[in-house]
């Protein structure tokens, strides 16, 4: 039995010496946890990477540190950050990835983000947000009346997603949209004026180049077309057929809360063109009405809203077609229902999309007029 004890003892020593993971531990205070990563171009089109991380130290006057520097690639930037920051810079907790609009003005910028997808330590839930203007404006802005910038930004984006105004644009979704041949990518956009504010959605072409921006209300229409209503959706539109839009208190406005929306697309192919027929059924509750009750009855009001929504949706779709971008993802429908035809146009779906017939019909049912008549 002596031999087996010897084996046990040597095994124990061996294991103790090898105790894995304990040699390279890092306490939390010694980490510089990037919460925002920024990618931008400066005036001379050099790649500029920035990051912002909280400081866990009582002696520091500011509780957040931000750096910006020139680097060849995102991964390359880490060595410069390590040279600047107190702790080891880690990317595992990045909440928001800011991309400068200047970057999007060049096509094929997407490979810059390669490391984010290749390196398993990155989180794919990071929100990708475009900055209309220099990224550094947002990165170095310390709002006196708000929580730390990373948390504030994330909450602002998430809230607008819940209210069906911002598109979901995590790294995962961006990757899917960049590779999807039947759809073009779209990202939420923020702007630094006096404060940092959410302004809408930017639409990119299939190579990722910037094409157009739509405001928050139109983003809601985009999401209706994509059938992606989240928790809440409120629309405020003027009833143009009631006239007199002017005056101080826009008296033709109506707001309604869409409690249910169902978007159906019928896909067909005739005479060399794709045919998409949208049928959008909505149940709404009126939340605000500035014109008096006697003007129209409920049936007329429903018809008016339908007409107004139809015009706006069709205008938006026409604009997409003119710009040859398909942020709605109609290509996915074309692939599913007209595969043979789609296969032929797959490499240049944007062209086929621009030529297709898209018809929108809206069916509105008012469920309630609210607490007052």
């Amino acid at each position, binding site marked *: 039995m002596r031999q087996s004890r010897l084996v046990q003892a040597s095994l124990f020593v061996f294991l103790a010496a090898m105790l*894995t993971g304990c040699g390279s531990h890092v306490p939390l205070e010694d980490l510089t946890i990037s919460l925002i990563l920024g990618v931008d171009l400066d005036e001379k089109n050099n790649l500029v990477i920035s990051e912002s991380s909280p400081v866990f130290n009582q002696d520091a006057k500011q509780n957040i540190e931000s750096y910006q520097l020139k680097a060849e690639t995102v991964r390359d930037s880490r060595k410069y950050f390590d040279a600047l920051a107190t702790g080891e810079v880690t990317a595992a907790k990045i909440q928001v990835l800011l991309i400068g609009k200047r970057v999007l003005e060049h096509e094929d910028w997407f490979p810059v983000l390669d490391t984010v997808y290749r390196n*398993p*330590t990155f*989180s*794919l839930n990071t929100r990708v947000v475009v900055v209309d203007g220099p990224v550094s404006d947002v990165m170095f802005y310390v709002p006196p009346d708000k929580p730390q910038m990373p948390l504030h930004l994330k909450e602002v984006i998430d809230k607008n997603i819940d209210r069906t105004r911002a598109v979901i644009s995590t790294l*995962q*979704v961006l990757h*899917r949209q960049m*590779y999807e041949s039947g759809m073009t990518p779209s990202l939420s956009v923020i702007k630094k004026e006096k404060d940092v504010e959410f302004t809408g959605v930017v639409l990119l072409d299939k190579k990722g180049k910037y094409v157009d921006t739509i405001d928050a209300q139109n983003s809601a229409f985009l999401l209706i077309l994509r059938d992606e209503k989240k928790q809440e959706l409120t629309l405020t539109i003027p009833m143009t057929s009631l006239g007199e839009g002017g005056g101080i208190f826009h008296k033709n406005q109506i707001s309604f809360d869409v409690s249910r929306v169902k978007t159906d697309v019928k896909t067909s192919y005739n005479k060399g063109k794709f045919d998409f027929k949208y049928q959008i059924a909505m149940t709404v509750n009126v939340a605000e009405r500035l014109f008096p009750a006697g003007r129209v009855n409920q049936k007329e009001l429903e018809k008016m809203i339908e007409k107004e929504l139809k015009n706006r949706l069709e205008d938006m779709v026409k604009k997409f077609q003119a710009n040859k971008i398909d942020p709605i993802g109609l290509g996915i429908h074309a*692939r599913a229902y007209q595969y043979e035809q789609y296969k032929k146009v797959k490499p240049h779906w944007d062209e086929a999309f621009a030529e297709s017939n898209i018809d929108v019909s809206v069916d509105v049912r008012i469920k309630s007029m609210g607490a007052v008549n």
Partner: protein
Amino acid sequence: MKMAKPTLTLPQYIFLIHGVQMGVGVLTLPRETAEAAGTDGWIGIVLSWVLATAASLIIIQVMKNYPKGTILDLLRHYFGKWIGIAGTILFSLYFGIMATVIFIREALFIQAWILPRTEVYILIALLSIPSYLIVRKNITILGRYSVLVFFMTVWMMIFFIIPLKQAQWLHLLPLLKEGWQPILDSVGTALFSFGGFEIAFFLYPFLQKKEKASMGIVIANTLTLFIYLIITIGAFVFFSPDEITIYNEPSIVMLKILEFRFIERLEIVFFAFYLFVISVTVLPLMYMTVYCTSQLAGEENHRRHLIWLLIIAFVYVVLVPPTFDQNKLLQRLIEQAGMVLAFAFPLCIWAYLLILRNIKRRGN
């Protein structure tokens, strides 16, 4: 020292077979089937299940001819000593290489996803200890372990349902995009992930209720099919069909988007649990290896062989530091050998035994 002969209950038998089938294939299965047949790949998985179940049933039919022993005893009984020895060597080589390849893959996965700064040989050394503790005993212990691990890890399937809130079900349409040819191609890859039922050759004599053997193996195959389908179809609707082939392990990337208020980076936790799933593949394979070699050496106890197997695996990773590509290449090769052992071999023996019985009957 004579012990009671170890036996297997039906659940132990089912989960042993199912466990060996699951293995590492499930991480890459969505990509591999999508490479062959796009989002029709899941049909290939169903077809593979049909083939695997048919082959499994043939194995049971073969084993009914010699219920007292394993396939090694059967070979010796019907074909003589030398073919018996040759068969034992072949099976031990097959199981040995398979076990080592997946064992190393397990360490590589841990290194890539959880412990990037730890050397592979250290992980192998550490994994060897629990492996030794479980495999040194008999098949009953392994059976119990498989049952335990199944129920310990089956909840993980819930996490494959959650990402479906981002799903785009239109990706699955139309069915049969390019006809049947790509789907048949995908059967070629999907079939590998059903490999493992051939351990029934060795489990059959230990099974308590032999009349349930066929039903048990069909249940094991079907369980595997369901899990594969949930994960594969989940990945197909979650990723764009143009994108899915880019990810090496789509099944894990899918989990990367899970996020709760109280926990982020859930895929790390998931992966730690997934190691148990890999272990129920590796450990029975190791057991089969040392079972064969100790039969060959005529030894009752397989512990010494097990220690040697683990040492060989350790020395191998020290001398030839493994990489994913090299490991996958080896796996591909050994799986092809496995196809012969799991499909062609039982069919041939079955045919031979049928002919033999007919000749005997006619002789009478």
